[in-house]
């Protein structure tokens, strides 16, 4: 589904990401773990077209290369990002946010199916359609943001630290929903620092340290691995 190789990004002279390679299979949930400053956000922004990767990078989604496309065409190609900070249309209603998700002609036809899929994953949203997005709680906003991304009918859903700023209870609820999304055939790639919960719902995981992939494996293996703990706590 997604094949990334040789992905580097630098901000001025600072190399934030160096030679990252990664793959995600159809219907798979993959998590990239890393401490703050490891380059997680940069990685995800590069995939979504919000920052420009260094020459030589390859990003293939279902055979189509994305590395030179602007952000809105990457969405068209089937890759949707739920960004950190969510970037919801805060003065618009939930319904409008969701329907903007299906803005592209490709996705418009399936809008009602997509909407049903969103409701299936987040039943709560059905009652909140007319609420202004900016007035919702953090967890609910995160649901809208994921819902909006699902409306673009993506092959791959990217999540940038979805648990950030959420209470443990909400985090749990959110992570429970992700396998349901994957079950519909949409692959999920997320970066997280909450390793236990994210690994427990993922198929595979990567460890990102200092802008490099330093480890990868099946989620269940990583869950037991000390490398993860070391990446965070330096033990």
């Amino acid at each position, binding site marked *: 589904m997604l094949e990334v190789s040789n992905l580097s990004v630098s*901000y*001025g*002279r*600072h190399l*934030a990401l160096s030679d990252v390679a990664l793959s995600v299979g159809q219907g798979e949930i993959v998590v990239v773990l890393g*401490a*703050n*400053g490891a380059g997680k956000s940069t990685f995800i922004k590069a995939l979504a077209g919000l920052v420009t990767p260094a020459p030589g990078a390859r990003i293939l989604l279902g055979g189509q290369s994305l590395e030179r496309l602007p952000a809105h065409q990457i969405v068209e190609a089937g890759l949707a990002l739920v960004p950190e900070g969510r970037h919801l249309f805060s003065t618009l209603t939930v319904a409008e946010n969701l329907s903007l998700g299906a803005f592209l002609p490709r996705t418009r036809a399936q809008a009602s199916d997509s909407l049903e899929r969103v409701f299936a994953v987040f039943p709560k949203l059905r009652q909140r359609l007319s609420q202004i997005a900016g007035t919702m709680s*953090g967890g609910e906003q995160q649901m809208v943001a994921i819902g909006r991304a699902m409306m673009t009918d993506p092959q791959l859903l990217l999540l940038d*630290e979805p*648990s*950030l*700023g959420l*209470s*443990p209870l909400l*985090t*749990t609820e959110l992570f429970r929903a992700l396998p349901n999304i994957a079950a519909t055939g949409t692959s999920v790639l997320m970066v997280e*620092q*909450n*390793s*236990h*919960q*994210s690994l*427990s719902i993922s198929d595979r995981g990567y460890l990102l340290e*200092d802008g490099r992939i330093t480890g990868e494996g099946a989620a269940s293996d990583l869950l037991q691995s000390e490398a*993860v*703990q070391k990446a*965070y*706590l*330096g*033990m």
Partner: protein
Amino acid sequence: MTGTIMRVNGIRKAFGGLVAVDDVSFDLMPGEIMGLIGPNGSGKTTTMNLISGAFALDRGTIELHGEPISGLPANKVAHKGVARTFQLLRLIEEMTVLENAVVGMAFQPGRSWNAAMIARSREYLEVVGLADKAGVEVSKLTYIDQKRLELARALAMEPKVLLLDEWLAGLNATELLSGIEVIRKIRDLGTAIIMVEHVMSAIHSLCDRCVVMNAGAKIAEGTPAAVLTDPHVVEAYLGEPHHA
């Protein structure tokens, strides 16, 4: 002098409905490096901002040498001897390295605007290893050098307390080692340091003591080794271990 240099007592800050810092207290001893750690969004940077006067407190007090500094605007807090670095670099790109360093010293009380002051600022470039780049424009520096300069500028304030906000973040392994050396050198010069940091190896090797925050509250305090094995802390970082 009660032995503590800074005392943070029951501070709280809410943004709208979100309580970013909730009843946090700790002391800072002279010559100490204290780590302020916790997962993303736990309120560490807000705590730093409250100490440095960037935000006003909702509740609580902060004292420096027994003298309250909470409620003072940032410029007054700086005059009292609290210096900081910024998580995202805040250097002035159009200025030279030396000029940026002078920013730290020039506006402290009792400083006169003369060559001696400039020369003294330059000494802090030496501390961080930038002396040979004094005349270079900031935009031409490497990332690590820009980080060093942030530190030199803060040091040029000749502060009593130095707040480092993720100063080591984004450095590679060799840079990290030299960065740790620099911080140690500063501590040896007698400045007390509070550092917010995610690079745990640095916390382990530098900090005498750690305060751990999660969701705005202090959840642990102690030596790095002790707090980082504390199950609460591990859970805060990694999420609940027993999840279905």
